[in-house]
């Protein structure tokens, strides 16, 4: 992995190497797993305990996509042993060729789409910065990815004339979001109740927590000050 931390400024100091980012300190969905039924407990526990090996991507492809994923779904604030696997989830889906039920007529199959995009991103890095994408500084990586996000690849690449860039970006974001936000550590981060069967919820209104949930404790949370992936209106 080409993970590289850079500090997140926030009130009270830097946010890094956190066990649990977010506004719900001390909240743990996994701590509730004795209240879940067996099938769900098994599915969620395996997701935490088992990380699939890389089988679809080559070593080089995995390194490059890993670097992309580290910027698209950054986890520099998380402690190393609390990092949520994203790349391996994408690799597993493509290895099994598990589809989502459709393919846009102007898109190649998912497996091919990823291979094409990886090639394009590396060529873009080489042509713009004369370096492999994986070796670029975080800022330069973000410059390239931001240009993809904006639909204006800088520099342009032949792949984006064969494959609609906005569709690949959407595919990448969907895969990254699925991997990250299906993980119970991400549920803790955002205060999601997680599985709740057979127990269920009893406080439906006014955003009130269940006895086993936690109240929100807000503080000023800032992205890295120079990151290009901030929301437009977040400051």
């Amino acid at each position, binding site marked *: 992995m080409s993970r590289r931390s850079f500090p997140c400024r926030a009130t009270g100091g830097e946010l890094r190497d956190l066990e649990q980012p977010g*506004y719900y300190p001390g909240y743990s969905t996994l701590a509730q797993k004795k209240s879940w039924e067996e099938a769900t407990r098994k599915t969620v526990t395996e997701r935490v305990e088992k990380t699939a090996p890389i089988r679809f991507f080559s070593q080089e492809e995995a390194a490059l996509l890993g670097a992309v994923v580290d910027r698209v779904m950054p986890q520099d604030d998380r402690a190393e042993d609390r990092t949520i696997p994203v790349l391996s989830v994408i690799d597993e889906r493509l290895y099994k060729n598990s589809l989502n039920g459709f393919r846009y007529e102007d898109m190649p199959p998912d497996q091919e789409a990823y291979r094409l995009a990886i090639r394009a991103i590396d060529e873009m890095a080489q042509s713009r910065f004369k370096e492999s994408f994986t070796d670029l500084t975080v800022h330069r990586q973000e410059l390239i990815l931001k240009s993809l996000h904006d639909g204006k690849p800088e520099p342009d690449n032949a792949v984006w004339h064969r494959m609609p860039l906005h569709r690949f970006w959407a595919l990448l974001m969907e895969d990254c979001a699925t991997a990250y936000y299906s993980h119970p550590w*991400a549920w803790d981060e955002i205060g*999601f*109740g997680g599985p709740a*069967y*057979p127990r269920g919820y009893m406080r*439906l209104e006014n955003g009130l927590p269940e006895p086993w949930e936690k109240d929100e404790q807000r503080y000023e949370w800032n*992205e890295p000050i120079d990151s*290009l992936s901030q*929301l437009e209106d977040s400051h």
Partner: protein
Amino acid sequence: MPHRLGPMQVLPSPVRRFADHETVDYCVVGVGSAGGVLVQRLARAGFRVVGLEAGPFWDTEKDWVSDEKGSHELYWNDLRITGGTHPLALGANNSGKGVGGGSVHWAAFAPRFHPSDFRIYSEDGVGADWPMSYWDLKPYYELLEREIPVAGPVWFPWGDPHGHPYGPHPLGGVGDVLVRGCTKLGLRSVAGGPVAILSASHGDRPHCIYRGFCLQGCKVGAKASTLITHVPDAITHGADIRAHSMAARISLRGDGRVDGVIYIDREGKEHFQRARAVIVSGYAIETPRLLLNSACPGHRHGLANSSGTLGKYLMAQAGNVVAGRFDELIRLYKAPPAHALTEEFYETDPRRGFARGFAVQTVGPLPVAFAKQMAVAMGAWGWGMRRVMMDYNHWATLGVLGEILPWEDNRVELAEEKDQHGLPVAKVTFNLHDNDKKLIEFGRNKVMEIMWAAGAKQVVQESRYAHLVGAARMGSDPSTSVVDKFGRTHDVPNLFICDGSILPTQGSANPGLTIQALAARTADYLIRQGDTIFYSSRRDQEEPGIRYDLSPPYTHFKGNPRIA
């Protein structure tokens, strides 16, 4: 371990198995919303029925989880090609696979269509009229509302005002936002339904526990799916339901009648199920695909396609999601995603400059779905995605449910690509037209206005589409439609279609209840016609008269309460 259908119900045993060489009365292709009701009715009436289902026969305790990613297998994930100017997302968005079909992962909103939906060509000069009226279907709406059953307000003021047999659900945070915003703008709203989710226990089905995983399959058994409402009764009455059985084509005899279905089992082995009549209930993509794949001499452009309309007039509803961020906590994951709505904008208002209208409904995306929506609605990625998701509990989401008109160029065809069985897959083409675009623009802005009125501090929206109907529409004229008002194909006297694909228009109501009501009516028709279906080509267009003695157990109520 017994095969469970919800925590309290067990799959009836034994399940009947007809031998390969036996000829049955009805072979139903697809055991979903419509197919589940059909096999139940036909079995109860004493017919020999086989239901072929491409997906698994779910054991809800073993196979289902309270988890978004872990529920992937509930959807039709096999390849389909999607295109056009506004390509539809398929799979989890609108297609189920397995016994219960899409009713396993629907949100279970169960509003009726309005009387006007059946005659929009007469009233507005757009789309098409149905070959039947609301009043023909009304007794079936009432019957299915009792059978599945529907919980909701006693006062539902739109369309044909009606009440609901089970009481409304308590309000969740998102429903509160909808009611608050509507009230500020002087719009009527209802909460706690109408949804096909139990607000009190019913027979061997427990009441809702508000865990929010409706779209992932209801392990609780509170949300209705035909898997738990009709299929058990079908099996008790001798229906043979075969899972992992993918229909490949329908076989046509020399005399122009069908004689069975060729299907492929789990091991890839081909079988031929002989039947005296065939009903296709595969929903708006698989139904036309099967009929197109069944092309044969005399039906070169697809079985029952002499009109050339098979696959055409496919519809999806506008399903724009409007998300609002509030200072206070909402926790949108609690309570059923479907639980409050307004239909104030349902009917045509000439001042708006477009025909027909839309509903506004609560939706409740869980974290993965919400993150995907924010990637589109806000362009969130990287640290921006992490930031917006940390506020997950501050967001509420409302959906437009807008009527898109039936257009000939919105269609299902066969693609070059083949599936794992070697069968050509469906290619879906979807384009928005002028009226649709105006309607969506107005609807989206109206829902954003409701969100602001409710007190949101930030409002964003994502364009998307919900549900699928049409592509084998019903009509009185055999040159412009595929089936008659009872679902019988105009071209083949013992071939029927019964599912969402026969809808000529779609209104702004979720189609599930209407699909099931139509299935119960078609079943009554078939039962009343008796053996004549199997040998005669006579086409009786008399309403069959509703049968109240064919409902599953525990579903006999005195009526559906309403306040006049």
